[in-house]
């Protein structure tokens, strides 16, 4: 017959093992997918007859044991692709030799750790400069948010990634809409 102390120890061990299993099964964080950030908008109602050079920053790599992040390359690529798809500018330049320079920086992103639903709040700074005159025609802090519900994906890391992607896509959409409303010349 086991002693009461041994029963308690075994009970604690089982609890720790359960915690360990949850940790192992929780999965690894994966980076936001560039394709999910692209704004699938056919048009913003404006076609600026100028070229634009796009540069993005503030993002980072995603560690397997860390938190979902957006890489600078993916953010930049998604903005470029969104501009091309919408036709907002006549072309997206590969070098600084363009009519306008668009700089987008990921300033902050909330990182909720626990819960069934995850809300990501995001802020990006958007600035557009006329490269010929050097004048800043747009300086905006754009905030976006998205909540992924508990039923949208089984794994928490997937729900977090989805929320990050949707919040970023909303931010890009708002940024491009602002640019569409600018009287560029």
């Amino acid at each position, binding site marked *: 017959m086991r002693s009461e102390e041994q029963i308690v120890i*075994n009970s604690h061990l089982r609890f720790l093992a359960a915690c360990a299993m949850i940790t192992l099964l929780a999965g690894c964080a994966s980076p936001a997918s560039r394709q999910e950030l692209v704004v699938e908008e056919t048009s913003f109602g404006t076609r600026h007859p100028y070229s634009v050079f796009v540069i993005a920053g503030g993002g980072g790599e995603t560690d397997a044991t860390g938190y979902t992040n957006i890489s600078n390359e993916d953010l930049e690529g998604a903005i470029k692709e969104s501009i091309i798809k919408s036709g907002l500018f006549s072309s997206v330049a590969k070098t600084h030799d363009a009519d306008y320079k668009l700089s987008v920086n990921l300033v902050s992103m909330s990182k909720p750790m626990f819960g069934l639903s995850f809300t990501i709040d995001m802020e990006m700074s958007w600035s557009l400069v006329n490269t010929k005159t050097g004048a800043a025609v747009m300086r905006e*802090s754009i905030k976006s948010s998205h909540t992924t519900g508990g039923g949208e994906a089984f794994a928490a890391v997937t729900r977090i990634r989805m929320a990050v992607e949707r919040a970023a896509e909303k931010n890009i959409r708002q940024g491009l809409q602002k640019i569409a409303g600018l009287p560029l010349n």
Partner: protein
Amino acid sequence: MIRRERTIHVVLLLSLLVLLHGCAVNKATATVDQTTDLSALKMFHVKKYSKDTRDTNVLIENKLTEMGFHISGTETEVDAIVTYVDKWWWDITMYMLELTITLRDPGSDFPLATGHSLHTSLTRKSPEGMVDEVLTNIFFSDEKRGADSDK
């Protein structure tokens, strides 16, 4: 019985490996917007983060003063407002896991520059060290450019 406990120990060991795998992560980034001239910023107001209970705002003010800048107690007539978010974690003792400092335009709230540092437990820095690293990266890092700087 022995076999079951051995299995439990293996699972515990594996989970420990998973948990410890991320214990030595360092990240330090700084971004300055293309429209920002940092040399024009002389006077700052540090806005206390609503969830800060450890007076990180004082550390930022002290460091900015040490760097030769002026600190104002109000948001009026300053070149930039400094906002920050500090995140603390526990591992034997509490330590500052992450610090993000943003310099904002006083009129529009536009983020002029942002710095971020992350040090997990094994490479933890003191709060003063975190503040020093972030502000140094914003103002003096050669690697930062208009958009990014990952080190």
